[in-house]
């Protein structure tokens, strides 16, 4: 793995301090470890808070490094702190005993979940202390920015990115190099770079992990992008639901400014850049780029028609480059290893690696970064270990509320932009939610539709009123009071909302319905009202799943 490793201390305990593990008791464990460590004053053993160690479902995670290799422990209660310390020490009877005692917490690093990963974006995630720029620098952070500023022209940078074949990781998969060129080639004037960290798709937490685990990588990627397109101002728009990510990002920016990595004349060049954090306030639609820009400008996040694209006219009318966290974070590695190196991974149309957040009815939940084109089945069944009770996977939902459900029989499909689109789903930002056999597809479709109802900005009528009608139609299916005509109406309205909505939210809102209709149509047909069952629609309120009311307005 081409990761520059700093002079590794002989022995260290890396404790995951990302929100997943924290909520599972990571803080208490870290405190216990420190207390125990201070008490017996172990020499040569470092306790290091780091970012995400991937297998979030088994948190809190602790990696135990030593010359004999790394052992990973999961779900460690604070009472086991002393054992961990002992196990981290050199070989010996005591260490042996402690290791034996911890055996039930040990996680197999040779398991496909870890073995099949190909970290690029996450290469130092879990290695580096997210709150220390010195540690980041020791892991090579800002090395590429320094080199780029000294050695490459903006055009050379863009060429390298274009050569890598990197496509936007936010969901739509627009070629990154092309976007950078578009911004760079606008008439002279100010430009802005914006990082979209408004990761709102339910089931997606890749960007949060990067922000919490390795914020300097993102800053470096943004700085390189700013240089490449001629911007001197940058914004990171983070959703407010990620307080830890915001805190660490702000700290990292402060440290970067202090170190002169941001500011005027960076690394002695004449390139200057300021980056500000803008915090959202709970609006999924702000992940849409035009809405995001308005939100940065302190307004309601209501998308506007494109063209003109933000690359032509964005923040305050100036050309604006918008990429998401993962896209920017892939940039330093691409410049370090070269675009060709990156392009060698993945498939013809989808180069490189992609980070996925694996969750739902799956044994191993957490973050995986794999080369594009890996079959979905490998991700879900081999890496994820399938459904916990051993039953069959029914479907995998990708792309969040804009995506769709891919049925079990199509799990051999390679994960890339085009294949997922062909199946009626989409890559989206990388959430992958596994569904077991008990999951009802009309219920899932309604779940997403209610989400869209809730998150629609209300500007255009197909999305504002169409999603409400779609949710109501889906209610009829879930509650077994639909008629055959409702199925027709459902499909027709889905088509209309998809074709006529103003922005991606509305355009994609019907996708969960259309994809479940495509693969699980029989479930909708089975939900049609029995002919004998013809009381007035309003009297039937309780559905077979007992779920009668939702959270939609």
């Amino acid at each position, binding site marked *: 793995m081409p990761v520059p490793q700093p002079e590794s201390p002989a022995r260290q305990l890396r404790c995951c301090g990302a929100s997943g593990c924290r909520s599972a008791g990571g803080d208490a464990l870290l405190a216990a470890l420190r207390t125990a460590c201070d008490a017996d004053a172990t020499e040569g053993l470092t306790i290091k808070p780091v970012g995400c160690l991937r297998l979030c479902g088994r948190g809190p995670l602790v990696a135990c490094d030593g010359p004999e290799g790394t052992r990973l422990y999961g779900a460690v209660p604070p009472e086991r702190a002393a054992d961990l310390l002992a196990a981290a020490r050199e070989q010996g009877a005591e260490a042996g005993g402690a290791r034996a005692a911890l055996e039930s917490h040990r996680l197999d690093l040779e398991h496909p979940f870890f073995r099949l990963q190909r970290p690029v974006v996450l290469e130092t995630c879990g290695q580096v202390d997210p709150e220390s720029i010195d540690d980041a620098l020791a892991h090579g952070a800002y090395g590429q920015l320094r080199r780029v500023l000294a050695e490459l022209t903006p055009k050379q940078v863009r060429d390298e990115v274009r050569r890598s074949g990197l496509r936007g990781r936010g969901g739509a998969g627009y070629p990154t190099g092309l976007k950078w060129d578009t911004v760079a080639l606008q008439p002279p004037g100010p430009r802005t770079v914006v990082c979209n960290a408004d990761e709102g798709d339910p089931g997606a937490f890749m960007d949060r992990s990067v922000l919490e685990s390795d914020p300097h990588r993102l800053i470096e990627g943004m700085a390189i992008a700013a240089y490449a397109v001629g911007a001197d101002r940058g914004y990171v728009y983070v959703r407010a639901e990620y307080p830890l990510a915001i805190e660490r990002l702000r700290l990292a920016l402060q440290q970067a400014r202090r170190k002169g990595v941001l500011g005027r004349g960076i690394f002695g060049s004449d390139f200057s850049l300021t980056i500000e954090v803008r915090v959202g306030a709970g*609006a999924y*639609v702000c992940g849409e780029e035009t809405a995001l820009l308005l939100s940065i400008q302190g307004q*309601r996040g*209501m998308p*506007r*028609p494109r*063209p*003109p694209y933000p690359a032509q006219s964005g923040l305050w009318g100036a050309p604006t480059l918008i990429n998401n966290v993962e896209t920017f974070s892939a940039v330093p590695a691409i410049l370090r290893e070269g675009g060709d190196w990156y392009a060698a991974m993945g498939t013809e149309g989808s180069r490189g690696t992609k980070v996925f957040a694996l969750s739902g009815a799956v044994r191993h939940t957490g973050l995986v970064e794999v080369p594009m084109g890996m079959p979905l089945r490998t991700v879900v069944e081999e890496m994820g270990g399938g459904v916990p009770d051993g039953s069959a996977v029914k479907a995998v939902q990708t792309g969040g509320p804009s995506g769709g459900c891919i049925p079990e029989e199509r799990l051999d499909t390679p994960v890339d932009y085009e294949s997922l689109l062909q199946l009626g789903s989409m890559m989206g930002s990388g959430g992958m939610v596994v569904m077991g056999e008990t999951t009802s597809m009309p219920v899932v479709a309604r779940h997403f539709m209610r989400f869209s*109802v*809730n*998150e*629609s*900005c*209300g*500007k*255009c*009528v*197909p999305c*504002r*009123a*169409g*999603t*409400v*009608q779609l949710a*109501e139609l889906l209610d009829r299916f879930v509650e077994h009071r639909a008629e055959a005509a409702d199925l027709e*109406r459902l499909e*027709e*309205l889905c088509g*209309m909302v998809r*074709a*006529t*909505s*103003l922005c991606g939210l509305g*355009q994609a809102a019907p996708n969960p319905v259309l994809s479940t209709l495509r693969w699980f149509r029989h479930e909708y047909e089975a939900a049609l009202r029995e002919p004998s069952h013809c009381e007035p629609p309003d009297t039937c309120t309780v559905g077979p799943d007992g779920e009668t009311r939702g959270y939609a*307005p």
Partner: protein
Amino acid sequence: MSVVTLRVNGQEVAVPAGASLLEAARAAGVELPTLCHLEGLTPVGACRLCLVAPEAGGRLLPACATEAAEGMAIRTDTEELQRYRRMAVELFFAEGNHVCAFCVANGDCELQDVAVAVGMDHSRFPYRYPHRHVDASHPQFALDHHRCILCTRCVRVCDEIEGAHVWDVAMRGSQCTIIAGLDEPWGDVEACTSCGKCVDVCPTGALFRKEDTTAEKHPHAERAELLRRAREQHQWSNQ
């Protein structure tokens, strides 16, 4: 002035650079239905009625908010577009409480006209009968939220022409509502100059003069453009 040429329904038209597809369509003698759009106000592309289909394929474009480009070819009236327009009008009717029979704008209502134009006489989607209210706190005017289609013409005319910015949109999604001030009674908002432009440009009976009763509203939507031209170009044509 540079000119772009494009094709509308197969017919070649030339329009000044910077013109919208809506203007191009009009130059070709094609009238597209519109509700949110109004000459003189910034286009928002919200009502989706003026969507047109590029012959080259790709997403439908709101004609009001899309600049005409050289060599472009668009269709304005495909069977699909007609179907979508009809459904959009159905959705408008189903989401509010539009009772033409005693509406102040009956007979002079753009929503009604559009419904007639697209051939919509009832909504196939259930009427939602939302609970809304009427704000009649202003001494001269009133706002009936039941009839509001959220076109935001009032918001824009007040902001862009009058400069008072009394109105804005609050909440989101199906909860969206036009508000005055801090969601206060209109009559309590001191910023209002009582100029009545919002009433003039409202396409439905949502904003009206209080003395008007059923079918007595006769709006003057053209005022936005006339005023803008007067202000920006010092040309007056509304003598």
